[in-house]
């Protein structure tokens, strides 16, 4: 026979109904005897540290008491639910120098909300205006830069053109002088040859 199983050990330990073969095996098997002894010690320890029942306190339990408790619990929940709903409707709890009061402030709350919305709208408009100003300022700066760049370019171009014109005029003048001098030379030559009177 194989060694005893966990359940069989428990049956032996607690004197539960069991097969005769278990006892026969136990009588012969030293290993199972040692294991059973270990379990017996475990049970003895568990029993010896069993809580002292003299310390037990018994509660007072009754249908009436519980019914009252349940009612109180329900009332607390109902009150909490009512408070929540009222707060959603605009009621609110307010304190006045040490005393608390529940006030209907639905209208006041609406007015306050309208004021808050108006203030928010105003802030939004200011933000848009500021944004526009910033945008305009940036655009102006950009255009100014472009104008300056264009002015610079025009200035440069004008200088180039003027310089070119001067060069051209100088060149023309020189050519005209050359042509005049050539005419003069030809005229003198014709006079000498008698072709002109």
């Amino acid at each position, binding site marked *: 026979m194989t060694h005893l199983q966990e*359940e069989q050990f428990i049956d032996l330990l607690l004197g539960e109904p069991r097969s005769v073969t278990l006892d026969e095996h136990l009588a012969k098997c030293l290993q199972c005897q040692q294991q059973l002894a270990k379990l017996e010690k475990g049970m003895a*320890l*568990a029993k010896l540290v*069993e809580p002292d*029942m003299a310390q037990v306190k*018994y*509660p007072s*339990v009754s249908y009436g008491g519980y019914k009252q*408790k349940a009612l109180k619990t329900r009332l607390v929940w109902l009150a909490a639910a009512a408070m929540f709903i009222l707060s959603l409707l605009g009621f609110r709890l307010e304190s006045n120098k040490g005393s608390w009061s529940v006030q209907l402030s639905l209208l006041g709350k609406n007015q306050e909300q309208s004021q808050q919305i108006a203030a928010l709208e105003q802030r939004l408009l200011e933000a848009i205006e500021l944004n526009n100003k910033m945008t305009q300022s940036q655009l102006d700066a950009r255009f100014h830069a472009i104008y300056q760049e264009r002015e610079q370019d025009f200035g440069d171009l004008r200088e180039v053109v003027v310089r070119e014109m001067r060069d051209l005029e100088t060149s023309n003048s020189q050519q005209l002088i050359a042509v005049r001098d050539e005419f003069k030379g030809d005229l003198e030559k014709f006079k000498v040859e008698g072709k002109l009177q």
Partner: protein
Amino acid sequence: MENLLDTELVKLAQQGQGQAFDILIARYQKKVTHLVYRYVNDGDVALDLVQDIFFKIFKNLVNFKGESKFSSWLFRIAVNDCVDHIRRLKVRKEHSLDHFREFGFDVADTGESSDIEALIVNKETQSRVRELLNSLPENQRTVVVMKIYQEMKFEEIADILGDPVSTIKSRLYKALNTLGGLLRRQMFIEGGPPT
């Protein structure tokens, strides 16, 4: 009315008869209180827990359909509340088996020993055994409380916990094996090896 069966009293209580509820509670109050006290080992905590358990019974009795025995249902709620309480306190974390190993205990140790009574007289040892018992897995500890302390039948425990009898016995075996292993090591440390 006191001679009525549980099932009859439950029906009457469900119809709103307070006296039937009171009789039912009186029938099981002592057993439940003992179970809870043995589980938590604290009179005040047990008192609060038992109050909560019976209030839970009061609130949920109308939903009890009689699919199991009333006593099984009641004890199942009690055990679950005890386990929840222990979990909340994180007892297993605070008193883990590692804690014992730090003190030189070896829970897996095996061997012979003698004179359990002499050893247990030592209060420190008692405290450590109690801590080890508390550090057992909840399902093992539950079976120790229900079987060793409450002396309930295996079939009854199985019915309450919803597990087979073989599983219950296996859990008890593991719990006692762990406790038995502690003893041998403790004696060796404090008094030398047994002769």
